[in-house]
């Protein structure tokens, strides 16, 4: 009879509709759950990837340099000898003291140039500038950061070179002073940006209190703001140091690329007008020539393979230097915070 049929039909249709709706609902739930998990997973991956990349790079550099460390590494000779003769016919020596001295002196002069400039600029931008001028200054500083390092090297080679010769009478204008000035100018934008943030993070209450006590603007900066922003300023300077240590192209062109320790027995003891060579420039200049050779049948490496591997060990040393700088900075900043 029609009613029963229609009811039966209806029930069937209803169950069918309900089941398809339920099915769709389930699909939607599963989809939402999965997409959430996938996206969260990807975000976690992106966050962890930084750690993964650093480990991978470290693993790669270590793997390439490992045979040298295992077979031919003489710690005292490596770190304390200035004789770097990796391609010698008669007496191969791998001493990086002169290279360490080169990197160290260039970084030192760079920081002597950069720190006063950048701290002064940061203080000027945040305290003594009008609003319009501040915007313009920030754009100009960022422009300084956008100059490629090879262009800086060119400026050092073509412009600073004759200037230094004329001003100081040095026999050659490619020296520690030249590279130090250029690398210092390159580090200025980084230090300014972070120092300026650190200065602006000082609570307004401090500044207002100082003004209420009758301090002049310079007194406020010198006695209140700079001590309060100490840890941020230190972080900025150490970041600049890291930049200076890792700079390759500009120092390759401006240091004169000479294996030489610029310290001497006679005054002025620290000869800024002598040419040096840095760790980074050595790797850049010599990596193209050093062949990557496989091991012999008995697992040892032919002597010519050590040049390539030694350059990777120099890379490990650079890694270690930057790592030590970062750890020191971390400890000092923590120490300062504890004082507060």
């Amino acid at each position, binding site marked *: 009879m029609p009613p029963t049929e229609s009811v039966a039909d209806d029930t069937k249709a209803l169950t069918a509709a309900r089941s398809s709706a339920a099915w769709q609902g389930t699909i939607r739930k599963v989809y939402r759950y999965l997409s959430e998990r996938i996206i969260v997973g990807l975000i976690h991956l992106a966050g*962890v990837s930084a*750690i993964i990349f650093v480990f991978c790079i470290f693993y790669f550099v270590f793997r390439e340099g490992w045979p040298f460390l295992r077979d031919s590494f003489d710690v005292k000779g490596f770190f304390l000898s200035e004789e*770097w003769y990796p*391609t010698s016919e008669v007496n191969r020596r791998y001493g990086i003291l002169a290279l360490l001295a080169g990197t160290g002196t260039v970084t030192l002069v760079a920081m002597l140039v950069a720190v006063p400039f950048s701290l002064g600029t940061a203080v000027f931008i945040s305290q003594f500038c009008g609003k319009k001028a501040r915007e313009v200054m920030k754009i100009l500083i960022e422009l300084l950061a956008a100059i490629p390092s090879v262009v800086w090297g060119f400026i050092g080679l073509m412009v600073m070179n004759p200037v230094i010769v004329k001003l100081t009478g040095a026999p050659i204008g490619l020296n520690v002073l030249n590279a130090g000035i250029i690398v210092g100018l390159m580090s200025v934008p980084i230090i300014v940006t972070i120092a300026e943030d650190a200065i602006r993070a000082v609570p307004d209450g401090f500044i207002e209190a100082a003004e209420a006590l009758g301090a002049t603007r310079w007194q406020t900066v010198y006695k209140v703001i700079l001590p309060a922003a100490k840890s941020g300023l230190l972080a900025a300077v150490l970041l600049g140091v890291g930049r200076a240590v890792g700079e390759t192209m500009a120092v390759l062109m401006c240091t004169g690329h*000479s*294996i030489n320790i610029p310290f001497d027995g006679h005054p002025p003891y620290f000869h800024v007008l002598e040419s040096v060579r840095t760790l980074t420039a050595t790797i850049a*200049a010599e990596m193209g*020539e050093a062949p990557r050779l*496989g091991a012999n049948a008995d697992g040892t490496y032919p002597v010519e393979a050590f040049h390539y591997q030694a350059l990777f060990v120099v890379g490990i040393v650079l890694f270690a230097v930057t790592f030590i700088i970062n750890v020191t900075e971390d400890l000092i900043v923590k120490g300062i915070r504890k004082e507060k």
Partner: protein
Amino acid sequence: MSTYCRKVLLGLAVMVLALGLAGCGKKDNGGSDSGKAVISTSGSDTMVNLAQMWAEEYQKVRPDVSVEVGGGGSGVGIRDLMQGIVDIANASREMKDSERQQTEKNTGKAPVEWVVGYDALAVYVHKNNPIEELTLDQLAQIFAEGGTITKWSQLGVKVGGSDEIVRVSRQNSSGTYFFFREHVLGNKDFKLGSKDMSGSKDVVELVSRTIGAIGYSGMGYKTDEVKFVKIKKAEGDTTYLPTLENVVAGHYSLARPLYMFTLGEPSGDVKEYLDWVLSDQGQKIVKDSGYVPVGK
């Protein structure tokens, strides 16, 4: 350890393992096919201008073949040949036995040497430097480790500015560096503290701007701001300038062949290119570039 930490470490371990396995399986085997119409070359900075002029001229002779020229120094060219990356290595020095053995071990073919020109290694000083001539031994004393000559006054010459001899040299990937070390220093090492430039032109440039500088480079790189130092084998010998005639006649002591190295006997496009380089057309370009052609 929390679950999150464990997951992170697991992910790290998987990544490291994967990369390690990938690294193990790779082999250095990039051989370029000389049957195709591209001939890749790299190497000597002394020869780089010459090689580029050859490549450009050859493009007119055989438009279907293109010759790529790279630089980097003889050491880089030889290393590229050793790893099978290039067809021809330009070099201003010979290959060492150890390099030949490594090439054969890596690529299965022994390198074959072709002399494509001659160059004179010139010693340059600033044009206002009064020094005129030096013996090979004096050069060795100036440049070698343990050498005793460090000031211009020791050579009896007064140079404006500081008395110190500023030594301008090349980086150790350079064939010029290698040749100088072998033939002037007797394979002793260079004194530390020389300014190590990356190219032949850079050496001359630095010498032209530094009154107390002395440097060595190919004879084709002379400019008006520098002058040649006449070289004699020993005290009392005749001195010679690095000119075409002196090299051809065998008088100039620091003449050196310019080489091209191939993997095994060349065939096809590479052989035709080498034949053209050694022909009158190719050798005329050698002469126009300031070097000495072969076979005179």
